[in-house]
């Protein structure tokens, strides 16, 4: 573990010649400054112009809106940090796991077994993709293809019909509000520091960081770099499974066209959060903040009656701006 940490420090300190520590620090600072300034401006603007914006109820709504996207974005941050860009099958895997959970519940397998089986399936769904990526396949193409496979399978599992769970056993998971906070938000708030801990303080996390920072150097130190993709996409798969279970439990049903636009929302959270696309830098906390900021912005626009066209335009522009700024920062050494 110690030797791994030393290697990681050296890699991130630029001994490989590929990563400039100043760039990493500058990037992190820029992301933090952009998000902080943006959030302050938005909150000030919202408070001044929109009567219902600065309320406790609305704060809960924003956190709730950020939660499901945020949970998947935490998983996606592992994929990106490990140097595998994005997994564009997150939406489809979440849909499939929702359908599988619904199917298991309807077949009366019971809540505990259905939860366990769905999460195992979700992890396996991620692991298979990670294994293919580990063999050297392009992560974007691979996950796009798997996305089609998962969506098709969801359609088959559901028979293109609503799968009604037929029991209220899972309702608590989707609709309860312990201490006034939705269960999804509790999960998001709990998973964010956990995801940070896994990345920063465990061997698995170090493997992801090292492989993302410099694949060749990581290989030279004896790390199995193919494991990085496997671990990253498996963890993402489990996060997708949680999102799928949450959606099915919330309405007591699952169907093959849930989660419209989830892939874009998650990628946007990663980019706005400032995680380096080339890998090796960033933290799940940045992904969580990116998701929260986008939810805040969308909420502000919705309360001000902006049409979905304008909302998409603004979020798209924000993602473009974030990408450009971080790219420019990366070029300046």
């Amino acid at each position, binding site marked *: 573990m110690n030797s791994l940490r030393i290697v990681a420090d050296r890699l991130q300190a630029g001994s490989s010649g590929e990563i400039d520590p100043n760039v990493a620090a500058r990037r992190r600072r820029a992301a933090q400054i952009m998000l902080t300034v943006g959030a302050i401006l938005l909150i000030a603007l919202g408070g001044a112009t929109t009567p219902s914006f600065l309320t406790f109820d609305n704060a809960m709504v924003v956190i709730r809106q950020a939660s499901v996207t945020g949970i998947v974005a935490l998983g996606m941050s592992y994929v990106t940090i490990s140097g595998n860009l994005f997994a564009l099958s997150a939406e489809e895997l979440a849909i499939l796991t929702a359908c599988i959970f619904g199917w298991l519940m309807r077949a009366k397998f019971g809540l505990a077994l259905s939860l366990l089986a769905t999460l195992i399936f979700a992890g396996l769904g991620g692991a298979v993709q990670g294994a293919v990526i580990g063999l050297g396949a392009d992560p974007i193409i691979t996950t796009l293809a798997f996305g089609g496979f998962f969506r098709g399978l969801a359609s088959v599992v559901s028979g293109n019909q*609503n799968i009604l769970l037929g029991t209220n056993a899972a309702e608590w998971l989707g609709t309860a509000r312990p201490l006034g906070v939705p269960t999804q938000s509790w999960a998001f708030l709990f998973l964010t520091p956990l995801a940070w801990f896994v990345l920063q303080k465990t061997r698995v996390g170090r493997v992801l960081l090292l492989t993302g920072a410099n694949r060749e150097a990581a290989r030279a130190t004896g790390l199995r770099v193919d494991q990085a993709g496997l671990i990253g996409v498996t963890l993402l798969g489990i996060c997708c499974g949680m999102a799928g279970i949450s959606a099915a439990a919330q*309405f007591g049903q699952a169907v093959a066209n849930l989660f419209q636009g989830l892939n874009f929302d998650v990628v946007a959270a990663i980019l706005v959060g400032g995680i380096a696309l080339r890998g090796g830098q960033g933290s799940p906390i940045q992904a969580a903040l990116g998701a929260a900021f986008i939810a805040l912005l969308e909420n502000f626009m919705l309360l001000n009656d902006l049409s979905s066209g304008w909302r998409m335009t603004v979020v798209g522009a924000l993602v473009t701006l974030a990408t450009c700024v971080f790219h420019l920062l990366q070029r300046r050494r």
Partner: protein
Amino acid sequence: MKSPNRSGQAKARLLGLAAAAMLLVPLAAAPACASNGLFVVFMPPGTDNYLAQWQKGARAKAKDLGYDIKIIESSRDQAEQDSQVQQEIASGEKVDGYIWWPYVNAAGTGSLRTLSKTGVPVVFTNQYPIAGTEKFWTAYAGVNDFLNAETAAKALVKACGESKTVKCDKGLIITFPAGYSAGSDRMKAFKKAATGLTVIQEHDAGFMAQEGYKTAAQIIPAHKSEISWVYTESDSLAEGVIQALKENGLHPGVDVLVVGGTCHGDTTNLLQGELIGSGIQAAYLEGWSSVQTAYKAVKNGKVIDGETYLPANTDKPPSDDGPVHRFNFIPNPWVGNTQADLDAFRLWGYGFKELCNY
């Protein structure tokens, strides 16, 4: 000992035999009876449960009439659907009639024009044809979105008048996605028919409960003290809205009246009185009647101007004989929110559960 060459030839022969057998199996399984013709349908994907049910109805009617049916699904992408039209026409396949369900109505006009140039009947379905495209299609068959929303509006106004707990005034409208013309048609018709009701905010959300919830959960806290009604363009969207209302301490059916537009599989909200009722827009019957309209257009070759509403018979489906009108609407009857209402409902020989449980 066999030579490698001979072994290779033997393997090649075996593979050839296996491939031939694989080809022969489906051929042998093909129906022996001759088909009366072919209808080709262009539509968004059947992964949506409404569209999947539409397909079941269309296939059942085509089989009943002795026609083959080929359903070409696009993803939610008009450009892809346009490309599919080009490819199908370029294939030179003999087609007796096309059924056209665009994803984005206005953007699909070019493909509609291309289909019209083939000279075979083109039946528009599900989305009301936009003005100016009249010469590109033969007939419209399916739901009347204006009627659908008007039925919901009238039911809401009636429920408002009868409610002892809600004094209807201001409310919200949650619609299908932007660009989906059925959504804007319904919204216009609802506003026109909902006399005496004030719209505070209207927002596009999507088709699913999850999308309805996502939008409603954000706008309801800002208006919860003044909302007395919510109109959603489908019962699926209404399900999400009902959950958002409850989370904000409002009781649907008691504090706020919620009305949807298209029935769906889960009757929980309906039977708990959280929805004031449901409009029976049956996907199965829409697919069924679209194929029947195409068949009538091919058989009669003549189209009568004006519109007709297929009769809302309880047990008998409409006849395959008789003329086609320019607009052929399926009925959109209203059903109340009690178990007795649902049990008593019949349309064209189907019950509520058969028509809405998808």
